[in-house]
């Protein structure tokens, strides 16, 4: 872990009131008064952890998976994050070598406000919400994770996509000196992922900065990652350093690596098998049996199926 010697007087960015909120503080107080009642009632799943890296967020009751969340330990010790190694335990072992502060995100392409942004410029830390989402990996295992973040749409609205933009591309940091997995010939670096703009603007799509009431651990994609709960996990780019708006479908890393196995859409779909295994069922970790039926769009079909109306999802896998 990154050891920060924080003095008691130091403030984290979550404590800073953005100018916009300050300017509209009367309205802010009025709207949050209602929300904070709910906040006091539920706080975070982790309970009374007064950790140094605590990140308060309001639980969004709309997005609470009925399933029991996995433990913090499970979520932070079993990760596919090839930048730190191909073994699932590698990220937990080596991600502490990554420096996540300072962090700059380059915003470019078809946007009204291109430039270099800090995390706090993109994410409104006063509007953080906790959402409990199912996470379905393409490898047919799943977890339940209490993420903390803001809708990606709020981030994109700040950078003002141009009308011609149709896709968003996310690029993960490439820094082999601190990401030892990048010194191995496994994937093409940097890792690139992308979404259609309507997918990115969908209210379910989250820009994540924390989990379990804490600042996002490095092995989970600190300081900034996306999460798209109806898609396989690999669609959720981690440790993002570039957000590019474009009118061309981004060439996402896994689809380039193995086009017959991974596509651009990667929607969770029990009827379209991976060439090497069925996607009909999944193992809910840390269980033994692959006996959980996989749901279409990972169970979020009511909200997202409309995005794909008329599309052949077998071909557009």
């Amino acid at each position: 872990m990154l050891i920060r010697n924080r003095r008691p007087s130091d403030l984290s960015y979550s404590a800073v009131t953005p100018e916009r909120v300050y300017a509209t503080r009367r309205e802010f107080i009025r709207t949050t008064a209602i929300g904070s009642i709910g906040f006091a009632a539920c706080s975070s799943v982790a309970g009374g952890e007064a950790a140094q890296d605590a990140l308060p967020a309001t639980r969004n009751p709309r997005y609470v998976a009925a399933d029991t969340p996995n433990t913090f330990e499970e979520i932070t010790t079993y990760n596919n994050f090839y930048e730190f190694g191909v073994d699932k335990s590698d990220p937990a072992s080596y991600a502490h070598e990554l420096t996540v502060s300072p962090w700059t995100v380059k915003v470019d392409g078809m946007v009204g406000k291109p430039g270099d942004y800090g995390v706090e410029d993109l994410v409104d830390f006063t509007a953080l919400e906790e959402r409990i989402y199912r996470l379905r990996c393409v490898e047919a295992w799943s977890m339940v994770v209490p993420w903390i973040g803001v809708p990606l749409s709020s981030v994109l609205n700040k950078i003002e996509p141009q009308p011609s933009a149709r896709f968003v591309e996310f690029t993960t940091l490439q820094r082999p000196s601190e990401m030892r997995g990048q010194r191995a010939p496994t994937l093409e670096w940097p890792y690139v992922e992308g979404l259609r703009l309507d997918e990115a603007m969908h209210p379910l799509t989250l820009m994540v900065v924390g989990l379990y009431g804490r600042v996002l651990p490095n092995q989970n994609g600190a300081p900034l990652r996306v999460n798209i709960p109806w898609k396989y996990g690999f669609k959720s780019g981690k440790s993002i350093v570039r957000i590019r708006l474009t009118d061309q479908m981004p060439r996402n890393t896994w689809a380039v690596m193995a086009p017959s196995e991974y596509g651009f859409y990667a929607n969770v779909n029990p009827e379209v098998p991976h060439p090497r295994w069925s996607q009909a069922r999944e193992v809910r970790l840390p269980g033994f049996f692959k006996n959980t039926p996989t749901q279409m769009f990972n169970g979020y079909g009511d909200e997202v199926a409309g995005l794909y109306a008329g599309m052949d999802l077998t071909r557009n896998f």
Partner: protein
Amino acid sequence: MRWFYWMVFLGCLSPGLGLVRDTFQGQLGVNPVETLLHETGRTALAILFAALAVTPIRRLTGWNRIQRVRRMLGVWSFVYALSHLLIYVVFNHLGDVGAILDDVVERPFIFMGMLTFVILLALAVTSTNGMIRRLGRRWQYLHRLVYVAAMTATIHFAWGQKADIREPLVWATGLAVLLGVRLFWAVQRRQRQRRPSPVRAVSH
């Protein structure tokens, strides 16, 4: 010699005991079945390679008695391959035979694994003294399939990887050495048989 035999026996048994212990102590990690599959598969492959290394070691060192552990190594490899298969059948497929057959037919990676298992099964059931006697020369031919099993097992491993094939490549290199020395000796033997010996040439 007995001590060597039993050392090898314990060496083959201990990875399995370790996995049983980890299972009951909840030490298999967040995805226990993935750990079990990887470890049983890797151990089966390692022991199979050890069995294939016996003959080259004997020929290179002249240590003939090492030959006595070869059959045991082969049977242990089968035991781990069987556990590997059973874990897949029980936990991944909940014993659904139809789903397993689909998997075998539709997925080359699974087909290679199953082919390996069938070969190892045939070799294990014909590994008794009685079967060796009964099959005579045919036993020799049948048991040469162990080379095929080593190849299909390595391919199964490689095809099961998502992106990183470095480890299967290491195994493939080992296999190339094990098969390469045999090929080299076979060629040598053939040349010796074809060429008249220098001694005889002089006597003519």
